[in-house]
């Protein structure tokens, strides 16, 4: 499912990439930016967390002309006199103005790096309201946001992800630079599809899907590994011939209570002693009622 999402998000779509401190989702975010640029779409990046150079690092070629970086990194809180874009300007009017500054025939894709920064300074209901207005507004075609799930309460994360049409949670795998992406996609008909895929990202930001996590377990036992047979090359014989095996299986083990022994005990043979028993009142001793006078 990951390659399909990379190929395009439906109009009005909202994709959230959730990551944590152990694995950064920014590389996957850059893959999405890269594939959007390759599709000749205009991409507007609202950058709070990383600088322009760092975000554009690795994205090469002429498509980069279509990438418009709005600098909210150097002064997001207005601590200097001339802030470029502050976090308090995150509202429908300002964002629409920002996107419409560059004239492009098609509506653009808005990438927010990151939503966590905004959620730290604005209340979640306001952020959700702005995101929903953006989706319905028409100024942007699709929104992609990066969210650090371990920085917020689960309720906040849940509320924002509820607005999304697709959520990708990235979790690292122990070995190498692969990661597991847990994808939830909600289509317009209301159908929800979920998937888990292992992927890795190459230098040019192409994503290679390498199968499902459940496949990873057995694959790790290397099939090429030759198992040496310990019973080969011995000076004594450890094997059984067929007759020997039959005799072995027929053997009754001494202390096993088999069916034959049970019948032998129950039906005693001729001439052996017999036990005649008549129920005696003294034998009928009830531990919980020793005097036998309870009316239970």
């Amino acid at each position, binding site marked *: 499912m990951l390659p399909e999402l990379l190929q395009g998000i439906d109009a009005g779509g909202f994709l959230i990439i959730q990551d*944590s*401190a152990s*694995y*950064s989702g920014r*590389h996957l975010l850059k893959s999405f930016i890269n594939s959007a640029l390759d599709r000749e779409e205009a991409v507007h990046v609202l950058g709070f*967390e990383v*600088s322009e*150079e*760092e975000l554009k*690092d*690795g994205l090469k070629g002429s498509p980069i002309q279509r990438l418009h970086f709005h600098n909210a*990194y*150097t*002064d*997001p*809180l207005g*601590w200097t006199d001339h802030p470029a874009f502050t976090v308090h300007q995150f509202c429908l009017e300002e964002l629409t103005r920002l996107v419409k500054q560059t004239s492009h025939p098609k509506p653009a894709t808005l990438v927010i790096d990151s939503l*966590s920064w905004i959620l*730290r*300074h604005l209340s979640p209901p306001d952020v959700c309201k702005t995101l929903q207005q953006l989706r319905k507004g028409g100024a942007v075609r699709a929104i992609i946001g990066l969210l*650090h799930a*371990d*920085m917020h*309460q*689960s309720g906040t994360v849940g509320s924002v992800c509820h607005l999304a049409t697709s959520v990708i949670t990235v979790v*690292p795998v122990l070995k190498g*630079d692969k990661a597991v992406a847990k994808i939830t996609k909600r289509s317009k008909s209301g159908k929800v599809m979920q998937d888990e895929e292992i992927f890795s*990202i*190459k*230098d040019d930001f192409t994503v290679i899907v390498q199968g499902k996590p459940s496949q990873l377990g057995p694959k790790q036992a290397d099939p090429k590994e030759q198992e040496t047979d310990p019973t080969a090359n011995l000076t004594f014989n450890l094997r059984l011939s067929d007759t020997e095996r039959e005799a072995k299986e027929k053997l009754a083990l001494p202390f096993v209570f088999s069916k034959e022994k049970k019948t032998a005990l129950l039906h005693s043979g001729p001439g052996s002693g017999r036990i005649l028993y008549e129920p005696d009142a003294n034998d009928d001793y009830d531990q919980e009622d020793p005097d036998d006078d309870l009316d239970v």
Partner: protein
Amino acid sequence: MYTELNSILNTTPDSFTQGEFVLLSDRKSDASFLIHHFLSLYLRARCKVWFLGLVQSFNHYSAISQRLGVSLVQAKEKGQLVFLEGLNESLSVLIPQETDTRSQAMGFLSDPAVGLKSLYEFVRSSVTSSGGGEEEADGAEEWGPPVLLVDDLSVLLSLGVSVGAVLDFSHYCRATVCSQLQGNVVMLVRCDGEEEEDDGDDEGSERLLKGLTHQCSLTLHVQGLPTGFCRDIHGQVEVCWRRRQGDGQYTQKKLFQYKVHDKGASFFAPGTSSAVL
């Protein structure tokens, strides 16, 4: 500076990555020996160093750096080291006097809710006035890229500053020093207690650590040994490179054990301590 740590991090006083945000953290341990490493490393590399020493006095760092072969007093006199002695400065805020002309860097002590903007202003004005400028006064030496060291950020939480304010402060420091001036930032944050799955611990040092981890490019996390106290091995350090390296490795983690000596610290792969081999 510790030579083994230099080889682990692939840094020397002559060549180190610029624009890096290094996060030193510890959990129930003491990572301040790493601060002394970076302080002596960058002073030897002839960088101009701004040190926000919020937890110890200048003499403390000076005495330890003396053992590492670097004189802080000399560096301060030459202008290479700008030291904000947090403990001293806080007195002028808590007991204001009429003849006080000191900067309001520690002004957040009187009103923690205001945030760390004044502390950032102190850093910014100091760094941009001398570190980034090309005109140097006659006779003044030219120093290398600016470096900001903070020891430590968790004490700000204890002083009533919110986690969000500290994260904003570190963000602005990074934006100014790392991105704008291509310098380095090294910050120490300390946690006590186990790593919990917090759900709403808004004021915890765990949240601060996670937030800073997202911002940084290199983390060194110091912990005690999981098996308990050992006389010859003082703990373990997990080094994690978060930014893309030249060969495309995105996140690389390495674990080392260390022992702190009188004049340094030695680092070795787990199980290869000289006491064991």
